[in-house]
């Protein structure tokens, strides 16, 4: 079974290859097959698969990955836009 594809060209995921030490942790924690390892460096192979969950950024030892994480959820975004505190998300 395949992964679902959501709206393309929007992810905020970024990888700084200079910092990457090729440990491969991002490949392990990413639930959506975003990375591959090539020549001891991580590469973003399937950028549109990213769901901005933050797992890779939190666990990358040299912090080579950055992503603006958040819940992809209509209600939370509406609450945020309205500046409501009890963000049900």
């Amino acid at each position, binding site marked *: 079974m395949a992964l679902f594809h*959501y709206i393309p060209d*929007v992810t905020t995921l970024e990888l700084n290859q200079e910092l990457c030490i090729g440990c491969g942790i991002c490949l392990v924690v*990413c639930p959506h097959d975003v990375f591959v390892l090539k020549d001891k460096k991580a590469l973003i192979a399937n950028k549109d698969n990213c*769901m901005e969950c933050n797992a890779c950024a*939190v666990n990358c030892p040299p912090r080579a990955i950055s992503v603006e994480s958040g819940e992809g959820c209509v209600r939370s975004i509406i609450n945020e836009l309205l500046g409501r505190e009890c963000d*049900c*998300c």
Partner: protein
Amino acid sequence: METLLSFIVAIANESWQLLKESSIYIIFGLLVGGLLKVFLSPTYVAKHLGKGRFMSVFKAALFGIPIPLCSCGVLPAAASLKKQGANNGATTAFLISTPESGVDSISITWALLDPIMTVARPLSAFITAFVAGISENLIHRPKPPGLIMADTGISDDTCCEDKERPSTLRKITTGMNYAAKEIWGDLAGWFFFGILLAGIISALVPDDMIAHWLGGGISSMLIMLLFGIPLYICATASTPIAAAFILKGVSPGTALVFLLVGPATNITSLSVLIGLLGKRATVLYLLSISIVSVICGLLVDLIYNSLEISAQASVGQAGEIMPEIAELGATFLLIALSIPHLVQWAKKCFRPTDSAGCECSSGSCSTETDKAPPPSTSCSYPDITAPVATLFPMAQSAPAEPGEIIIPAVKQSFTSGSMKTVIGSIPVVTSDLTARDRRGSFLARWNIGRMHFIVEPGLYALGNPDTESPVLVTANYKMSFDVLRSSLPGKNLWLLVLDTKGINVWCAAGKGTFGTEELYDRIRSSGLEKIVSHRRIIVPQLGAPGVDGLAIQKHTGFHVVWGPVSASDIPYFLDNKYQLTAEMRRKLFPFSERLALVPVELVQASRNILPFVLLFFLLSGLGGELSFRQAALEFGPFATLALACSVAAGTIIVPLLLPWIPGRALSTKGFWAGIITAYGLFFFSGRLTPSTGAKWTEMTAWLLIITAVSSWFGMNFTGATTYTSRSGTRKEMFRAIPLQCAAVVIGFSCWLFARFYF
């Protein structure tokens, strides 16, 4: 039309009278209640209960009388009493006398009923409580209190402020605050509901009907019992209803039965009681309440008869000694106090609920109970199984001292025994789920009882593990815990349960409750270091967004190994030296998972759409030559059907047919689902080719509304999916919402046009 209006006016009038008469007394009751809260803390009560079989029951029943807590609020209080060593009888007595009467309800009884009832009510509550408690203790001799739980850390203050003893003045302000915010917050919604219901009874129910059935005698009381036991209503709100009953000719004794039984029991609290006291004690509890209430009711009728007083005549007499101006002032004050609570209440009705999948969830909102409890108009039970039960909702649980080891209770509904270890007895679970586990999961999926579907955090043994056995980390959402253990038959492992406030791993990781800090604390406080000789923990990969594996290793010495996404792959993972295939690292979103999400989405969407159904009914009835009823029945049902179809399209068709509906954006998928459903609806209701211009306009209206609503609910499913990113959702929203709004506005205008101008 005419009659409808006059009904509404009559109801409003009756309700307003009741409100005016009771306001001043309610405020008085709240003030005293607030003071009681600070000066008569439950810890104090527990300390003074004593150990005797009779004395403790007597005192518990007595203490319960003035405390203004409803039958939900009293549960955590009683649980805490029990933890502090009170015997079953005393706990039972407290559980009965507290909700049946309180200073607030006593004073409102004085306002709306008469002096006899004002005395009879707390007195009967006391007797009921005492009898139930004593019979409990006589039948099951209380064991000498064994281990008394460590100090529960309940403080008089609502917040964890300064540790010094607060001054009396401070206490009073705290009490007042508590009265206005907490007590009234719990009661406001129900109180207005009660007033309204009483108004409806007074205005609509024909007099002779009630008097015939409930005019007195034992049969009236029995009917009232049947009505009152499952009903949930608090003591304060039940009073205006009782007043309306009496005015309609119900005998005062029968009304008393309602006043006693209504608040003391309801279906949900009974199920919690079974957990707290056991089945036999719960049956005994019900029996004593029923029998004593009926006897009290008969006695009260006897008193009225022998004194030859008519209860009907004396109802509401107290109001007349109050000057009108004071009554009005109090009423406005009360309304002012209520506005924030009512707004909260209304908000709560429209609030998104927890979806099993994730994210947008009131699950997390409800977990904010530990910060500020929402006005619990529908009871949200605090978790009574938690090691630290709190009496008043605001009291906070004490965090673990550094170095202190916390072991979860060995006896929980799902544990099967205990295991001796170096740090004490650890609860043991098996991989077999019982019928009870399954029923809980089923209910939770439908959003019932979700918040007390919780496992105490800490260390558990699965099977018969030893110092070399692997350690699996999971969330304390009972369903996550059950899925995990049931996929590990024949394994011997340690399960480390984190406190994620009853939310599953994936969602909790997103929110940060399944996070580095909690994992760190739990490793320390569970005593894991002493239990296992290795230094390795298996954390589900889906927890990675919240857990910094390196930080854990650095600070605890435990190496984090990322386990598979799905629990069913864990046996493979364990047997293959912690290796996994790439497939097992993927978070897929299969049909079964989407199917499981449907109920929650459906229930929530239906709740959101309900007010609109009513609106359409109302609008259907107005105008035209037909009477209100006829016209409402002419247009209302189709409107309901159409809205139901749009909800079904967005919350059933979209999730189930997700991969096959065209479009990437969920709003697009919702749109297509809406088109198909609208087509089906028109086809099967024979409206595909409308005959008149009016019908054409109406069908166009519904096509627009159905697709817009379906698109909206489809888009809402982003909160439950496992693959939508925030940036993507944002982009889709900004495109879809304007279109959806436009479609609804145009559609609604068309509908109005068709309804009123053709």
